[in-house]
């Protein structure tokens, strides 16, 4: 066991992440066996199901990547889901009803998310508000702003065949009648960039250190407020980006929703080995964690259960993982 952990490749990816990958494979096999047994004439093993699960993983993945930075500082952001919807509503409204060019709308989407990130970050880092409360409040605000902007109407983004539909190629492309999951490429690129920021730049170093021992970092002469705020900005920006991948896959956005995605993104993040108390984070882990959540969702739907079962399972996963993290930290100290 120790030998495996010391292997250079295993160290790079993270032992925890490899275990998680195995869990994912086992889960896939379980669904493959269980689905035909529970629901007649249903099958889980098909290419379209994989594409469908991935559709769910893209936007969730960007949300989770972002919130990984916030959790690494020891904070939390419960506003990401509604902020993503707010971005999608505002930009979608401008595109479909105001005729603003698509490219501008996509930028607006990212911008809206970033603004929320700046506000959250400022309130937490500089005004000293607890992140829990701050993000709860901005979740409400994001829901409200989205609704007000669209006059409580849902917004439907154009289909791929429509004039402004090319952005859907970000999520999947049809080549010779086969769906190519292009979104996966962007998600992986996003994860690689996040991983580089977290592990190889000053920002990432300080974000992790702040999560581990804020006072020690401050007394080293570091501007902790600045770096903490940056974590929230990254998180907001990625929520805005996630909006594009959401509408690329699901077309329609309704006002007043989005909070379930917070929990799923945070679940993916902590499952991947990011510690809720801060200081320890794994981007690769987050990515695999999100893929597992997406797989769960797809599997539960395939077996003909209500989506509510997935919420129950996700909730239990969060409790178990956070408890395990707490236990291992107590042992170490």
């Amino acid at each position, binding site marked *: 066991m120790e030998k495996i952990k010391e292997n250079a490749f295993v160290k790079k990816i993270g032992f925890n992440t490899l275990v998680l990958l195995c869990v994912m494979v086992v889960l896939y096999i379980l669904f493959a066996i269980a689905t035909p047994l529970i629901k007649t004439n249903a099958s889980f093993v098909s290419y379209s199901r994989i594409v469908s699960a991935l559709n769910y993983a893209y936007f969730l993945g960007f949300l989770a990547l972002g919130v990984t930075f916030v959790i690494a500082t020891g904070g939390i952001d419960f506003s990401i889901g509604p902020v993503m919807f707010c971005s999608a509503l505002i930009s979608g409204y401008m595109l479909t009803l105001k005729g603003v060019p698509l490219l501008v709308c996509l930028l607006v989407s990212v911008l809206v998310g970033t603004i929320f990130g700046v506000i959250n970050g400022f309130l937490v880092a500089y005004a000293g508000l607890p992140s829990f409360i701050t993000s709860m409040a901005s979740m409400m605000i994001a829901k409200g702003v989205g609704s007000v902007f669209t006059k409580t109407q849902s917004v439907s983004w154009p289909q791929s065949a429509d004039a402004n539909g090319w952005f859907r190629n970000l999520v999947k492309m049809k080549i010779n009648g086969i769906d190519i999951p292009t979104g996966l490429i962007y998600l992986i690129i996003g994860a690689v960039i996040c991983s580089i920021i977290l592990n190889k*730049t000053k920002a990432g170093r300080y974000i992790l250190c702040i999560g581990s021992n804020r006072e020690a970092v401050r*007394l080293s002469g570091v501007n902790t407020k600045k770096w903490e705020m940056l974590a929230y900005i990254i998180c907001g920006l990625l929520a805005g980006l996630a909006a594009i991948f959401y509408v690329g896959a699901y077309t329609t956005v309704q006002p007043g929703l989005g909070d379930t995605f917070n929990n799923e993104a945070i679940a993916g993040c902590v499952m991947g080995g990011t510690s809720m108390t801060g200081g320890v984070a794994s981007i690769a882990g987050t990515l695999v964690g999100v893929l597992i959540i997406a797989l769960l969702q797809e599997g539960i739907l395939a077996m003909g259960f209500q989506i509510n079962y997935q919420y129950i399972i996700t909730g239990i996963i969060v409790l178990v993982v956070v408890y395990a993290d707490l236990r291992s930290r107590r042992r170490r100290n």
Partner: protein
Amino acid sequence: MGDVILTMKGIDKSFPGVHALDHVDLEVRKGEVHALMGENGAGKSTLMKVLTGIYHKDAGTITYEGKEVEFTNPREAQDAGIVIVHQELNMMGHLTVAQNIFIGREYMNGKLIDDKKMNEEAKKLFDQLGINIDPKETMSRLTVGKQQMCEIAKAISHEAKVIIFDEPSAALTEAEIEELFKIIRDLRDKQMGIVYISHRMDEIKVITDRVTVMRDGGYVGTLITKDSTKDDIINMMVGRVIYEDPKTESQVAPDAPVVLKVEHLNAGRMVKDVSFELHKGEILGFSGLMGAGRTETARALFGADPKDSGDIYVNGQKVDIKTPQDAVKCGIGYLSEDRKRFGIVVDKTVAENSTMASMENFMKGIFIDKKKEKDTAQEYVEALKTKTPSVDQLVVNLSGGNQQKVVIAKWLVRNCDILIFDEPTRGIDVGAKSEIYHLMNELVAEGKSIIMISSEMTEILRMSDRIVVMCEGRKTGELGIEEATQERIMHAATLRN
């Protein structure tokens, strides 16, 4: 003074690596106020913890009201009538006075708490003590002095026969102390036995009947207060033999320039009008008893805590230090007394901790130059003889002394010219201790300057070129090493302005 109510005889207690109490005796009579004195770490608190059952003694006997006793927890001691009034007030600010006094043993009316009854009972206690506090008042609205009165009332409500006051006057004003003394005298007249722990020599003379002095975990002797002088007591407190050679003369050149000048620094309750100078190549010792305000002075100077007023000059230039960032820019580094909380980042490696304060020197574009980082960390691991398997080791896995070296390395990598070492050898074994002394001497030889805060007299006398003594937030003495003696330092450290 009446009959003996409490006798502790030959009390012995060891912790791993420390002989905390070495056959200590203490005798308390009914109707006496008995002072327990000693420097930091003399063992006063440990002795009281053994008495009240927080620690278990290794040897010795405790006789209370004629019977040998051994309490296994504070609750048992309390029930028997031995209570402590702590220095740190253990009060819940949002509850009322009465609710605080009866916490954990509330008067009940069926399943509900009977606040009315508690208020009545609290009122009775206050009347008994002759103090005027409304039991229905919210605790946090009272002054510190009044809160302390509530602690005393709480102690009395346990039908105490022996009350231990642990530095009760530390946070009180002159008028509040007067009131406290009045109550203590009342309690004495009611034939209670009172143990009074304090560092303030003047108070000892005023309020106590006898004094027991402890030193380095041992019993030194007991004096009748009115027959002894302040000097007698001080001599008993410090009369230890200094094994390691104290410094005999300053190593600083007489014309060494002033690198740091602090003028009239004020910060909160603990730093009052502190001024001093630090010369190039000097180790300036900061001595004083617990709570003298030395760490607070350092933190205010470093920008870790806000300061109210005062000027700071670095190399003759006036500087405005508001945050640790500003201080670090001025070339000041601060090694905290509490390594775990303020020094190291436990989830990070030796290398990552070493470069924490000087990241910008380890960048290649936007990326961290990890090779350079590791090489530099390795250099300092070797220079400081830090024992670690590699620089990739997480600091949490290192021993205390080696963690300390990592924090020192952090400031050396930053190349700070002014270093503040706050209790640099606390919780560090003897070997590592002398290595850190050696290192400090090397640093000043290279022209760096060090402020060393230390509660160990031997450390102060061995390392310092000059000594600033503080008491209750004020500078009460400044001595060149040539004229410094334990007695003189202790004199200044107990001087109340």
